[in-house]
């Protein structure tokens, strides 16, 4: 039934007639509509203008009413008709349909608005969802507000993250502060080979004290947790490797995997590194440790005094649940008071007290929190530019719709009706933009988590934040409605006839709107510039990180772990023999250049901070001032060569006779800070109970992604294998495909011992990028946000300039007729562009300057007000401003003078 579309004002007129004729739900409506359409089609076909046809048609409302009186069915209904002040659902629907029709006639406008909204809403929904999950959501434990992490504080400030067993034993008795206090062994990541199943598998193990699960307030899914006796007593500790009780609590996942979720798992035994443990409990699905890695198995830690559990051994982490009703502040005061009394009776505490930190804060960490807030701020700024842009588009559309609105007003649409029409139009845009934004947000969250899993801790599942989406959408729709209404409201102040007659858009309201649009663009440029400046800083910071010399060469290096079960490798000799054999086999592979092993890889943080003694005058260790802290690394094979760490002087690890005497290699920092002018090579130091000769000086290697270094000493595994069962990480430098190499090594390992697992193979490059993950995440996201804002502001600037040129084509035509050169015309447009971009740039610079204080802490080797970044950004904006003015300027110079002047 539908025929070719008519001009919108005629469609509008027909709608008014039909509405007044009150023919809804009758055949008559279609009949009348077709006839009216035919009327106008005939008129247009005869060359009569739409406006003439409309004028000749007369009052559409009156026509409709007369038609109503003549139609039999409608007449009766119509006789009692009175004007309603509300709109029926049907009428609303009509308005929406009409709005949709108007929008499909302006597809470019609609698309730009919807895409802009979608980008703003999508970016915000994604980043705020992550923010909500990481920073705002409670930890998944009972009453998480009462949970604290305990560090050791003491007057001499020697304590830190790690705690001493005797103190934990004392502190857990402080009932007036703590309900429960649990300790966990996070000093290093623990694993064990689980050999109960068909093939050996490596599982994550965590030693915990009794009270650990209770402090977190999570009951086991099946069975029980650890009893007091399984951890605290009676008797004395025998040694670290000897478990106090052979019981285990296992994760839900492991339970499902090896026991298929069966209830009779309780009481069964599992084999870990050749030792049997009875399964006494299963934790609920999704239970995670508050820090450290996830665990498959928890074993009870021997907390009895004796053995290595003494006052001079810091190695445990603590979590506690504060007593109900005790605030953090009260708890902090009380523990100081109790600690003082405690110190009086136990001088070896060194006055230590439990330093209480909210667990949530500990889990998230201050830098990560700050980074996420900054990213959220950036996303908010993207939303702001999006809103500014949409507003701008709406104002521009409002200008071009003045005539349309005037016409509708002349056709009898009341002010309310006009407002409703625009409301419907903007509502449609908002719904479409919101839906697209939601889709983009869902995708964005997935992308963020995939991009940086390590940045998003403690999150079992991130769900779309309903509140976040609602908030973002509300802001956008609010802006849309607020600014979208202005054309309709302005219309109500203007006489329709005046607008219709004037023919051009040079009214005073037009000029005011243009000022509004200019202001919006200036703001937009400002916001975008601040974002781009931020992104430039983050990018520079990240590139300094990536280019930072860390003291090693990760290219072509494969790392993996092999853990030797105590049962089959009971002593140092056996373990050393294994490593020699493994290294020989790997070295024989054709692609391999170097092979070695180390107790702790570079950039993974500080570890094993011990002390060494050096005083040639008093070699007996009597000089208390001659003790120096150093991080100790146990190394095997030619680790230094495999990792690409430079030997500065002396002999390499692979070139010495390890049977000759106890040896040590030290790094440059030790030389600089301890030996100074003295010759370090050949000196003897006391380390880990042995007097060792310094065989070589090694270059510094960073222990974090920011290139921090510390004193470091390297001890050969051959001379130290008996100290403990070192979990060495193998390092292999090779050519070619490392994945293929991994398989070859797996085969070789199987030939030595078929029960051993090649654990966590990865490249040194992957290790580096994982420690740089947070910085990369921040830089990448900032760049994305800045790019978005940049594009949006470019679109905004271009839109305003193009609109202005179109609106002033008459003026430009006159100027050119009066002899203005194309250069002058181009200059006019460019000057206008400058009036937008220059204040915007100044605004943005001011913003960047103010924001610098915020992001300083996250930047590496780049000043937050880095002149290079800022000036590059300004330059970029000036160039982009010029570029966006180029097309409109060119169009201005091609205005056809004759055509423009004879147009009206």
């Amino acid at each position: 039934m539908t025929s070719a579309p008519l001009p919108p004002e005629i469609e509008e007129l027909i709608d008014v007639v039909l509405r007044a004729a009150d023919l809804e739900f009758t055949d008559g409506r279609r009949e009348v509509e077709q006839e009216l359409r035919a009327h106008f089609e005939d008129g247009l076909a005869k060359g009569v203008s739409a406006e003439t046809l409309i004028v000749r048609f007369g009052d559409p409302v009156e026509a409709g009413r007369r038609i109503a009186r003549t139609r039999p069915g409608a007449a009766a209904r119509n006789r009692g008709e009175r004007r309603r002040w509300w709109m029926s659902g049907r009428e609303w629907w009509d308005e929406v349909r009409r709005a949709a029709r108007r929008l499909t006639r302006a597809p470019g406008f609609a698309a730009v608005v919807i895409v802009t909204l979608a980008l703003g809403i999508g970016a915000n929904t994604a980043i705020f969802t992550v923010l909500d999950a990481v920073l705002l959501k409670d930890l998944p434990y009972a009453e998480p507000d009462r949970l604290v992490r305990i560090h050791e504080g003491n007057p001499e400030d020697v304590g830190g993250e790690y705690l001493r067993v005797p103190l934990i034993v004392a502190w857990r008795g402080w009932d007036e502060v703590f309900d429960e206090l649990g300790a966990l062994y996070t000093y290093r990541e623990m694993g064990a080979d689980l050999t109960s199943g068909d093939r050996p598998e490596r599982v994550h193990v965590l030693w915990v004290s009794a009270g650990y699960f209770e402090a977190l307030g999570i009951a086991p899914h099946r069975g029980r947790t650890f009893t007091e006796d399984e951890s605290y007593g009676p008797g004395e500790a025998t040694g670290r490797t000897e478990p106090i009780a052979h019981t285990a609590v296992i994760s839900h996942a492991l339970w499902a995997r090896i026991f298929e979720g069966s209830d009779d798992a309780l009481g069964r035994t599992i084999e870990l590194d050749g030792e049997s443990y009875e399964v006494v409990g299963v934790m609920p699905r999704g239970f995670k440790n508050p820090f450290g890695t996830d665990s498959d198995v928890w074993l009870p830690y021997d907390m009895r005094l004796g053995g290595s559990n003494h006052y001079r051994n810091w190695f445990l982490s603590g979590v506690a649940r504060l007593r109900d009703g005790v605030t953090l502040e009260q708890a902090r005061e009380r523990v100081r008071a109790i600690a003082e009394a405690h110190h009086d009776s136990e001088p070896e505490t060194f006055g230590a007290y439990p330093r209480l930190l909210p667990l949530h804060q500990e889990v998230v960490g201050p830098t990560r929190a700050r980074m996420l807030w900054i990213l959220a701020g950036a996303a908010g700024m993207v939303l702001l530019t999006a809103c500014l842009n949409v507003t701008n588009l709406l104002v521009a559309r409002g200008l071009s719709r003045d005539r349309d609105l005037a016409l509708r007003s002349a056709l009898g649409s009341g002010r309310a009706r006009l407002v409703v029409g625009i409301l419907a139009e903007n509502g449609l845009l908002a719904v479409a933009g919101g839906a697209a934004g939601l889709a983009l947000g869902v995708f964005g969250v997935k992308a963020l988590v995939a991009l940086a899993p390590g940045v998003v801790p403690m999150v079992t599942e991130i769900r779309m934040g309903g509140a976040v989406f609602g908030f973002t959408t509300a802001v956008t729709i609010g802006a849309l409605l607020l600014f979208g209404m202005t054309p309709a409201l302005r219309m109500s102040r203007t006489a329709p006839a005046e607008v219709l007659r004037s023919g051009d858009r040079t009214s005073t309201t037009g000029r005011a709107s243009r000022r509004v649009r200019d202001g919006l663009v200036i703001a937009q440029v400002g916001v975008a510039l601040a974002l781009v400046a931020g992104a430039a800083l983050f990018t520079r910071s990240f590139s300094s990180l990536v280019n930072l010399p860390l003291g090693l060469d990760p290219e072509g290096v494969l790392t993996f772990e092999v853990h030797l079960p105590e049962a089959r490798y009971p002593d140092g000799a056996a373990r050393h023999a294994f490593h020699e054999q493994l290294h020989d086999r790997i070295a024989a592979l054709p692609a391999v250049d170097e092979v070695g092993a180390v107790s702790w890889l570079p950039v993974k943080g500080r570890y094993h901070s011990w002390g060494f003694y050096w005083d040639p005058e008093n070699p007996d260790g009597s000089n208390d001032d001659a003790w120096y802290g150093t991080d100790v690394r146990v190394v095997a094979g030619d680790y230094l060569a495999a990792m690409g760490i430079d030997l500065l002087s002396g002999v390499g690890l692979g070139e010495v006779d390890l049977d000759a005497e106890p040896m040590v290699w030290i790094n440059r920092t030790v030389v600089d800070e301890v030996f100074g002018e003295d010759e370090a090579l050949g000196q003897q130091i006391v380390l880990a109970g042995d007097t060792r000769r310094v065989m070589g000086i090694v270059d510094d290697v960073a222990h974090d992604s920011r290139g921090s270094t510390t004193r470091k000493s390297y001890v050969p595994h051959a001379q130290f294998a008996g100290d403990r069962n070192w979990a060495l990480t193998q390092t292999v430098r090779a050519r070619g495909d490392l994945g293929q190499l991994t398989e070859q090594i797996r085969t070789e390992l199987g030939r030595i011992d078929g029960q051993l697992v090649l654990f966590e193979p990865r490249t040194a490059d992957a290790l580096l990028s994982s420690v740089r993950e947070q910085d990369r995440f921040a830089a990448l996201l900032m760049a994305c946000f800045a790019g978005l804002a940049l594009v949006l502001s470019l679109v905004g600037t271009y839109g305003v300039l193009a609109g202005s040129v179109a609106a002033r084509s008459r003026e430009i035509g006159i100027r050119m007729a009066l002899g203005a050169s194309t250069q002058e015309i181009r200059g006019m447009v460019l000057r206008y562009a400058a009036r937008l971009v220059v204040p915007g740039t100044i605004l943005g610079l001011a913003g960047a300057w103010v924001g610098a204080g915020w992001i300083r802490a996250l930047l590496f080797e780049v000043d937050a007000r880095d002149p290079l970044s800022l000036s590059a950004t300004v330059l970029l904006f000036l160039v982009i401003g010029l570029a966006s003015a180029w097309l409109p300027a060119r169009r201005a110079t091609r205005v056809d003078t004759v055509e423009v002047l004879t147009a009206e």
Partner: protein
Amino acid sequence: MTLEREWMRGAAPLAVLTLLERREMYGYELVEALERDSGGLLAMGQSTVYPLLYNLEAKGHVEAVTRAAPSGRKRKYYRATAAGRKWLEAQRSQWATLVAAMTSLGIAADGDEA
């Protein structure tokens, strides 16, 4: 010159029916014919033509049939019915009587209207 509303109300149905008595027409044709044949005097607001047609149709004075116009588009053609012609006849004599009365009163001049 324009006619007052009341005159128009009386004259318009007669004019429309007279035109449709000669030949069938569709809406826009009729609008054009009215304007042309009445010297513009009966170029009423077109919005009133359609209600008028519907009114005549409802009274049974005209009937409509939809078919393709010479342009190929579908149009609703109106023509006078037998009842319509009869009514028109009665109206004509009434008009003649009225005009005669007016003329004798000197309101309407005989045959030399400017």
